[in-house]
């Protein structure tokens, strides 16, 4: 559980994080979504005290981060995969942290294995790592202390598709076991795929938050069948309203409801997925454009009284 309350970080007149409040709940993946420069990273650093917030507070499992006696055993952090001493090998870098946390060297090998860094890669100096390898090392570090809260800033950055797929699976499992996951991304799709709850931030302020079902899933389900007529009958029989959308059918129901209805009627489905709610995507696009426009005025932020 992460409770962020009225968190702000100002740099002079620039309000990088402006009165941000939200809760990331255990058992759920919370997506922290916003365009580049929206304040996601600053907010995350402020949550764990790496940046001193101008005002506001964050409680993790009910305590301020600085009050946690051995925070690495409670919170797994990946804030900047590049913020590692380049002269240390990957394994040594984790071993240093493991000894700080009071963990054995075998735990280091476990997490290296977990993120798919081979022993020969782990023996190389971090300075020679690709972005993807640094990201894997960062994820290994986040899992090192067997935390129950994960705070990950753009964890998909630099990972190959296989790595991204693996990471989503890990985060899902982690949350399903009762862990709390907060991950940021500037890509709507990235958050949509993995998050249960979504917090949208723009220009330092929260512009929308809610469950994915509220924000994204409002679009219903998209379904395609081998026999469209049979599908239409099956949906009608289940009492679901549907409309044709150029080959696919959009149904005002969850994919599960549609699947159950199709299975009951023995309809062969070719595709079934959650339709993207156009609302969030539009809002996010507007936000991105709005932020882009304000960068020109960032020297003189209107309304930002110093």
């Amino acid at each position, binding site marked *: *559980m992460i409770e962020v309350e009225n968190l702000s970080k100002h740099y002079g007149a620039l309000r990088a994080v402006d009165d941000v409040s939200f809760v990331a709940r*255990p*058992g759920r993946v919370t997506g922290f979504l916003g365009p580049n420069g929206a304040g996601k990273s600053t907010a995350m*650093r402020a949550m*764990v*005290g*790496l*940046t*001193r917030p101008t005002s506001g507070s964050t409680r993790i*499992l*009910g*305590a301020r*981060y*600085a*009050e*946690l*006696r*051995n*925070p*690495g*055993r*409670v919170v*797994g*952090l990946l*804030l*900047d995969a*590049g*913020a*590692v*001493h*380049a*002269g*240390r090998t990957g394994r*040594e870098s984790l071993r*240093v*942290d493991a*000894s*700080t*946390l*009071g963990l054995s060297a075998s735990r280091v090998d476990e997490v290296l*294995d*977990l*993120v*798919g860094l081979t022993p020969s890669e782990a023996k190389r*100096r971090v300075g020679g790592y690709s972005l993807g390898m640094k990201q894997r090392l960062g994820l290994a*570090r986040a*899992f090192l*202390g*067997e*935390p*129950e809260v994960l705070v990950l800033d753009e964890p998909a950055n630099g990972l190959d598709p296989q790595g991204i797929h*693996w990471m989503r*699976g*890990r985060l899902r*499992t*982690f949350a*399903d*076991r*009762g*862990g709390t996951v907060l991950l940021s991304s500037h890509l709507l799709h990235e958050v949509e795929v993995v998050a249960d709850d979504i917090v949208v931030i723009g220009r330092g302020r929260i512009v929308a938050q809610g469950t994915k079902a509220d924000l994204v899933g409002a679009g219903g389900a998209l379904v395609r069948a081998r026999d469209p007529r049979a599908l239409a009958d099956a949906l009608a029989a289940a009492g679901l309203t549907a409309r044709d959308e150029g080959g696919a059918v959009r149904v005002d129901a969850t994919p599960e409801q549609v699947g159950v209805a199709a299975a009951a009627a023995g309809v062969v489905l070719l595709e079934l997925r959650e339709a993207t709610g156009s609302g969030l995507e539009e809002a996010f696009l507007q936000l991105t454009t709005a932020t882009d426009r304000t960068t020109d005025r960032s020297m003189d932020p209107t309304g930002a009284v110093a």
Partner: protein
Amino acid sequence: MSTAASPHHTERATPGAGPDAPSTPAGPAVPPGGVAGPPAEARMGIGFARLVAVELRKMVDTRAGAAFHLVVVALTVAAVVLAVVFEGPSTFDTIRRVAQLPLALFLPLLGVLVAAGEWTHRSAMVTFALEPRRHRIVFAKIVAVVLVTLAYVLLLWALSAAGALASGPSAGAWEVEPAVLAGSTAALVIDVLCGFALGLVLASGALGILAYFLLPIVLQIATLWGPTERIVPWIAIERTLAPVVEGATLTALEWQRIGTSVGLWVVLLTALGLWLTARREAK
């Protein structure tokens, strides 16, 4: 790799979480989902000795760090050899005086680099995330760097003794004032701590080293100017420590000057560095 197990698959029984396990605000209720609370040791904090051990390890586990120590050891050995070869019959103390020069030159730089390292190498984010009470990291670094300095002094003495043995029997080969050994060691440690304080305040290895070398020069120049002429003897640390290195019995005035200079360049500067470190943004 998709078959990898959960991060919670072991060591979750927390047998240590008995009645002696401290209950802190951090101790969460066990959520129903199956993730147990953090193990007992997670709530006990990180022992200071462990932080010191980690800082010692961090001094030698990079190529640059290992190279630094190799160079210092090699120069010290070379200084001993040169002293024995060129000074003819050498005593323990004449060898020690020559061979301490590389230490006096390099160890304060080690102090600068260790103090500034987290910021120079961007590791501050991880280090201060694992121990948010940043002053504990700084104190652990101070202890570690003093331990390393003392280890070098012991090595210096051992090498000097070996040099004295090798240079053959000579009158007074082992004559040395304990006050000289203690004084020169103390002066070395103070120099290292001064370098550390500069690195801590400036958060940059390069700037810290520059400052460390510039300071005595600036103070030397300052003696040429009337108003500062009388202040310099109180704050120029290599001047105030000169009688200490010689093992002389110190006068009250000398003690006061030592107190002033060390208070300024070690105590005050370290305090300022701690204050800055606590506020600096790790990014």
